[in-house]
């Protein structure tokens, strides 16, 4: 019996590696290796022909990129998009979680509807939103001009870079708020009931409860959502490109450089720079905000 168990531990060493090996092989081969390869390509000019060939150009791609004002504009657009979308979707998700944390009839139905934007495929959603953003017949302009009167003239939201930024932020905040909602409501429901009871006995108002009981308990989840969504939003491509071709965030800039201009060495330089910037942010964030 004892021998059998020792034998088992002996074998486990190999079994552990054996079971994880295929997954690691795919992740190493299709993620880690390409990222390194991308770094290598960023120092080359890629000549596309029948045979691909690479010419070493040293830092010249990086110098060209960093002195290109178009690149810095893309950095700016990416940061504005990432920050606004993350913030707005978390705020909406937070209020949705507070509302649905109450018990009421039809709660599960409402929860289901709230998850629709997150569950539906992007391609379906962009068609609906292209219609909603239509300059003449769309509901968005109608709401802002005729109903609320916030803007005097209809706007071509998806055709002008200035407004495309707003449209993309609106669409992505809407699409991603259910993610924040799911994480936040799971945390809300884990707050012990006696915390609320104690507050009730003390006669705390709703805002006091929010400030002193709910928020402190939620800070860690909110910080995690910001980190994850921040990373995913910086890299976001499909949800932007499919809605409008007029917003040159870094991912779109890299995609165009690689597959419209076929300057793949430069595209590798753009994506490598993106990664390095993100790495800087993450280190700063983990040190300053999460305080690990």
């Amino acid at each position: 019996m004892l021998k059998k168990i020792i034998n088992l531990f002996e074998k486990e060493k190999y079994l552990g590696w054996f079971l994880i090996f295929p997954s690691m092989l795919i992740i190493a081969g299709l993620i880690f290796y390409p990222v390194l390869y991308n770094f290598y390509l960023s120092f080359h000019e890629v000549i596309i022909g029948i045979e691909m060939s690479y010419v070493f150009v040293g830092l010249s791609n990086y110098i060209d990129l960093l002195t290109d004002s178009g690149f810095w504009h893309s950095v700016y657009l990416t940061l504005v998009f990432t920050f606004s979308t993350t913030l707005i979707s978390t705020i909406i998700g937070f209020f949705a979680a507070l509302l649905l944390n109450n018990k009421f009839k039809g709660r599960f139905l409402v929860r289901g509807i709230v998850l629709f934007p997150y569950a539906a495929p992007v391609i379906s959603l962009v068609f609906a939103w292209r219609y909603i953003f239509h300059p003449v017949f769309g509901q968005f302009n109608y709401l802002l001009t005729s109903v609320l009167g916030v803007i005097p003239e209809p706007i071509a939201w998806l055709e002008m870079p200035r407004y495309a930024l707003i449209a993309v932020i609106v669409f992505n905040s809407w699409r991603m708020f259910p993610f924040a909602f799911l994480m936040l409501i799971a945390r809300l429901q884990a707050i012990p009931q006696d915390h609320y009871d104690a507050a009730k006995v003390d006669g705390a108002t709703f805002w006091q409860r929010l400030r002193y009981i709910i928020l402190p308990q939620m800070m860690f989840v909110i910080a995690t959502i910001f980190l994850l969504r921040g990373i995913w939003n910086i890299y976001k491509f499909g949800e932007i490109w499919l809605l409008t071709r007029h917003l040159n965030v870094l991912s779109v800039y890299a995609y165009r450089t690689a597959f419209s201009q076929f300057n793949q060495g430069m595209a590798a330089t753009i994506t490598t720079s993106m990664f390095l910037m993100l790495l800087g942010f993450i280190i700063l964030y983990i040190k300053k905000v999460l305080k690990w």
Partner: protein
Amino acid sequence: MVDKFFKKLSKKVGFLIGIFTLIFISGFPFVVMFFSSLKTERQQYTFPPTLIPEGGITELTLENYINVLNPEIFPFFRFFGNSFLVASISAFVAVFLAIFGAYSFARLRYSGRKFLQRSIILVYMFGGILLIVPLYQIVVSVNLANTHFALILVYLMQVLPVSLYMLGNYFRSVPYEIEEAAIIDGCSRIGAIFRVVIPLSKPAIIAVYIYAFMISWNEYLFASIFLRSPSLHTLPIGLEQLFYTEHFVWGRMMAASILTALPIIILFLGVEKYMTEGLTAGSLK
């Protein structure tokens, strides 16, 4: 007394307004999609915008759906079939590999395990856009451009880390004693995985499969880079390209959008509980 009554009433009204705003925000674009899919091209263009055409609800038509489902008019079935093929195979392989990988992480003790687990978490710092150039170069150089196989491999790579993470979380929540009993009874580790772990985690495994399926079903970036022939197109890239052709009709695109979204939304809502548990387990300290 009256004061208290009004306080309670205003609280209730505020709550209801909140709930209805929430339903409106989440659901309105779907309502637009639904009514547009039932309108003729002429009925789409009205100002002020209306959901139901002027002539009332009887003016609505199923014509768009009939056209979309007719392969001679609209290649919906071909795109749907391609998407289904690519998504179901990549999700299946990902879940199969992840069951063993996640088991290894959750239950076995060996040197190097911590390092491997950390490197999986590291993957969260990368995004698909970082890989477009190198993967394109690799795919072209091994002659896999314009094949579903290349796409399946890339989707497998995209869903494997999250599958490992989610399944690892579930396996840790299954009591170890049952497995231990099976092993003491003479079951091997692999036997215990098949006879105890998989049956006990069935809902979780299905949830991870559907999550992986959804990610592949949604993917546009790599499909647009790898696939050239329209006959190979998946739904996202196929529908997107139709938008820029003369075949573009609002109602048809909306009908196709609904048919693309419906199966996924139903699957998602069916397993959402397990999915959320697996995804949020790590962050709920």
